[in-house]
């Protein structure tokens, strides 16, 4: 009797393991398929001209340089705005925050910010940066909007990285007579830098692929390369959106080439950051 039940339990376990394993495999193969399909479709159209030429003939020919450059510019300014505030907020939470209600509200706000829909950020950016601050549709307005969206990622990455720096280091610096601030800035922050940098890069690469926030704050259907940050720009994700939905469909190899450049850019940065982080974690053992 009990032997039968053991057999039954083992059989159920085998089935459960198979079913959950199959689910995992499905999820993973979706990712692999998406990447593989884009690589397969887009690889043929990648050339030096494609990357460095501007779109021609109403996006039916030519390259994607203005959009690529625009995305790089937007990401650069996003980092410029989001990094200082995000890192300082992370420092506050890891080093200064007391266990009280205010801290709890701050953490709730950060977690909640990460869940705000990207189009809501877009409208917020339109109302505040484009209109109220009078920046107009511009690289600056779009970057500020993307910075808001990236902020929670940077704050969380910074806090986590700082928390991993052991206490001894802080106490040693304080015992040598360093003030609290210089302990943080000269001892703790450098030790946590790899974690902060990689976490922030992961957040920024996600921002680079966002379309909805820049839709109403930064982009134009067709624009020359912006001379200053106060002009609108083209951007890869928006360029892709336009090409995918406009009525006379542009040549497929241009569409897939653009998709490949966007995905490859985001992935390479992502994988590089993640690998570097893993290596740093292995190398530095506190």
């Amino acid at each position, binding site marked *: 009797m009990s032997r039968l039940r053991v057999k039954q339990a083992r059989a159920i376990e085998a089935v459960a393991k198979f079913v959950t394993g199959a689910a995992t495999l499905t*999820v993973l193969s979706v990712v692999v398929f*998406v990447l593989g399909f884009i690589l397969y479709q887009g690889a043929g159209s990648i050339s030096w001209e494609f990357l460095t030429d501007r779109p021609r003939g109403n996006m039916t020919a030519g390259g994607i340089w203005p959009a690529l450059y625009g995305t790089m510019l937007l990401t650069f300014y996003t980092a410029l705005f989001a990094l200082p*505030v995000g890192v300082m907020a992370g420092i506050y939470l890891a080093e200064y925050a007391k266990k009280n209600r205010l801290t709890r509200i701050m953490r709730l706000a950060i977690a909640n910010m990460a869940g705000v829909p*990207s*189009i*809501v950020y877009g409208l917020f950016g339109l109302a505040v940066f484009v209109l109220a601050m009078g920046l107009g549709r511009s690289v600056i307005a779009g970057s500020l909007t993307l910075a808001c969206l990236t902020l929670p990622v940077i704050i969380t990455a910074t806090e986590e990285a700082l928390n991993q720096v052991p206490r001894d280091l802080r106490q040693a610096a304080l015992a040598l007579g360093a003030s609290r601030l210089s302990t943080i800035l000269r001892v703790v922050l450098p030790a946590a830098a790899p974690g902060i940098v990689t976490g922030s890069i992961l957040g920024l690469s996600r921002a680079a692929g966002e379309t909805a926030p820049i839709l109403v704050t930064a982009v134009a259907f067709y624009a020359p390369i912006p001379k200053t940050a106060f002009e609108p720009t083209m951007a890869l994700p928006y360029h892709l959106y336009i090409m995918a939905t406009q009525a006379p469909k542009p040549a497929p190899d241009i569409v897939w080439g653009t998709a490949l450049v966007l995905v490859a850019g985001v992935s390479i940065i992502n994988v590089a950051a993640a690998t570097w982080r893993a290596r740093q974690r292995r190398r530095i053992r506190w």
Partner: protein
Amino acid sequence: MTDVSLARRRNGRPSIRRAAENVVTRIIHLSGLAAVIILGAITVFLALNSVRALRDVGIFDMLAGSDWFPTSHNASYGFLPAITGSLWVTAVALVLCVPLGLAAAIYISEFAKGRIKDIAKSVIEFQAAVPSVVLGLLGIYLLVPRFRVWLGLDTGLTAFTAGILVGIMALPTLISIAEDALHAVPADLRTGSLALGNTRWQTTFKVVLPAASSGIFAAVMLALGRAIGETMVVLMLAGNAGIILATPFVSARTMPGTIAGEMAEVVQGGEHYSVLFAMALVLFVITFAVNLVADVVLERQRRRWRR
């Protein structure tokens, strides 16, 4: 004493140093409030821009209105088509991603070991970085024409099509948070159950899953929040028709899709513009509530395991 004063002199004037440190510390303290300030500013600015819609159209006519004809001569701004559309898309997305995601989370947390576990986790983390516009593009080229034929529809741009891809987009959130919740269950509970002669699966099903239930609930809530707010996929794939849907197999208008699709074309400061802000406010309130519930539940569980 003299040593100390010498050291001070070498480091520059202490009063200036201390003042500078105070300023920097203040700025750091202030930055801690950044998230609170931005969330507050989002609420205020969405509300300010919605004032005209609330005054001229009225909250009842928006929330309970069943017609969305913003550009017709006698404009009507009913949110119901967009709300039901969003609900259908979200429902399809959750039906797809909750079972799949939970099963994957269980496998990764309870069965997978070593290298396979690491690879699975990093691939899923990586999936979160695939831009949604790219998935939208794949949907347009791969799913839309096939669904039209398979399901015998007039168009492949439906709530169902969008829901499938939104479900895929919500998977990384669901899996990573559910996996965290399972992982956080103390090892004692597992070893205790195994010692009593339970198999791994019995342990998982009867001990670990119930113990992690609130974390799993939070994971589902966060996935729900992502699904409601996902913009580009629904803008590109849901079809943006203006009717209240009885099934997901027709073109749907969604809240994020409506806002993103029409905002670029409206007169700034006009009625339609203000109504779109009101819709964004509704969307924001919904996602805020969903996220808040998830956060509170997660926080409570975290505190329970810490003891």
